[in-house]
């Protein structure tokens, strides 16, 4: 083994250790969640040495976690679908059609980036209250439908499609909707998946807005719901960690499955291509 190889192995080892330390909080949550409550407060070895699922059973049977899953899945899926569909249609018009006010609309979308969304929460809450949507799925969904990055990214990708392809479809008698759904969308499934993932994650993980608009426990999403149990469980650490991990499981599993797409999506949404 040369000195260079030796250095490389040492370097890799150091980076791996650093990465292991970085995920230690998750590992520690898992270790805690698998122990009995008495052991957690008596002695705390760092290794997983017990495989006690009682905390998980307790959490699943006593909390409203299943309902919060349902609320999170429902609101996130509906939001993602609407954001993508409306964003894609608007981006297509901005990219391919000429109409008065086109530039103004595009500038408006770009400018909306500047507005810190939480600054609007008071007014959005008043609006949801006026519409009678407090404590409903639509109350959670509607204000989260503003995702300007979707319009901007779609527009960039639509701009890049050669005009000849569009002329061919137009000559065959196809209209704009045919063009969008039979040509532009199929050519951009990759970017559609990427945008769907980032929209879904951001709605799923949003805490502040659902926390404001929902007060009834049975309408809460996961990030808000688990903070209620927190108070109820008090000092039952195994249960708290089991709850945290059960709440995180869908995103962790989803991320591990769609890893490449997720990282790609994050890069595209920030305007940096890898």
């Amino acid at each position: 083994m040369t000195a260079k190889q030796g250095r490389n192995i040492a370097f890799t080892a150091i980076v791996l250790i650093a990465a292991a330390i970085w995920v230690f909080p998750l590992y520690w949550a898992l270790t805690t969640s698998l122990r009995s409550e008495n052991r957690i407060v008596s002695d705390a070895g760092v290794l997983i040495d017990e495989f006690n699922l009682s905390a998980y059973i307790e959490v699943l049977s006593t909390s409203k976690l299943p309902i919060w899953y349902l609320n999170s899945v429902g609101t996130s899926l509906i939001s993602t679908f609407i954001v993508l569909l409306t964003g894609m249609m608007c981006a297509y018009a901005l990219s391919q059609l000429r109409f008065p006010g086109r530039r103004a609309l595009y500038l408006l979308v770009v400018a909306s980036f500047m507005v810190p969304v939480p600054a609007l929460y008071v007014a959005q809450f008043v609006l949801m209250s006026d519409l009678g949507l407090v404590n409903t799925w639509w109350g959670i969904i509607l204000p989260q439908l503003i995702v300007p990055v979707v319009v901007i990214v779609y527009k960039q990708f639509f701009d890049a499609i050669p005009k000849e392809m569009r002329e061919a479809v137009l000559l065959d008698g196809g209209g704009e909707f045919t063009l969008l759904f039979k040509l532009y969308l199929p050519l951009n499934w990759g970017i559609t998946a990427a945008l769907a993932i980032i929209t879904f994650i951001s709605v799923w993980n949003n805490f502040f807005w659902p926390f404001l608009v929902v007060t009834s426990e049975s309408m809460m999403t996961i990030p808000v719901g688990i903070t209620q149990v927190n108070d109820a469980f008090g000092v039952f650490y195994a249960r708290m960690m089991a709850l945290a991990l059960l709440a995180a499981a869908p995103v962790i599993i989803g991320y591990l499955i769609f890893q490449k797409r997720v990282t790609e999506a994050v890069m595209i949404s920030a305007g940096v291509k890898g």
Partner: protein
Amino acid sequence: MSKTNRRRRELRAAILLIAPFLFVFTLFFLYPTYKVIAMSFTDAPLIGEGNWVGLANYTKLLGDKLFYTSVWNNFYFVLLTVIPTTIIAMLIALAVSKLKGRTQALVLTLFFLPYVLPVSVVTMIWAWMLDFQFGVLQPLIAAITGKPVPVFKNPYWVMPMIAVVTIWWTNGFNVLLLIAGLRNIPEDLYEAAALDGATPWQRFWRVTWPLLWPVTALVLTLQLILQLKLFDQVYLLSNGGPFNSSYVVLMQMYREAFQLNNGGYASAIAMVLFMIIVVVSVLQFQLLRIGGRRK
């Protein structure tokens, strides 16, 4: 098909395509934007009409000690997070990009993982790790300071620890952007530098740093705006305390609107946050551009 006919068809299609987006955008974004501006000039409660009071809310803000505390804490938090997270992310990105194949994928996955977690999961885990009595990190703290510290109940520890939690949670995003930036730097530049006998240190400062600068600047800008919007972690970990030492602007907006029922005053706070973010990001953008040009 005549030309005017075609134009008319195009216009009709455009209207149909834009309408759904524009409807949502107008009702749930433009209207609330207008509404929050309008409310900031009234004494409205959260729900219900108020009277026009001109600039009264803003003058009241200027004399509100708690507001200054909040703004200060926001900037203190920015100081604690923005540049540290960028440095940490860059070190990680440089290390990860040196690795190959599966090891690289694994390491990147581990560093990115916290980013996909909901904030309340993150705060629950860290609250447990830093628990005063049984927290696994307390022996570490005790080793440094001599005794365990209830970090989220201690005015000196609270903001730095929230910063640590925040960096752990959001850093993966920055790592990813910087890795993308590193991949865009052509390999032959490094080969040329190596041929000229440049040391790794020189290669970093002469090649990597200047070419990565646009991405670094992007990371800094996004972080700055993100961290000024701090609320969730503070609410969940310390609720603004102890003695308002982690009270931030959005916390004050939340309390005023949803607990003290002062919709108008809360709107004025929101407007000031909005203005701070616009001014700071424009200033930073200009600074970063100058910084980039000098390189």
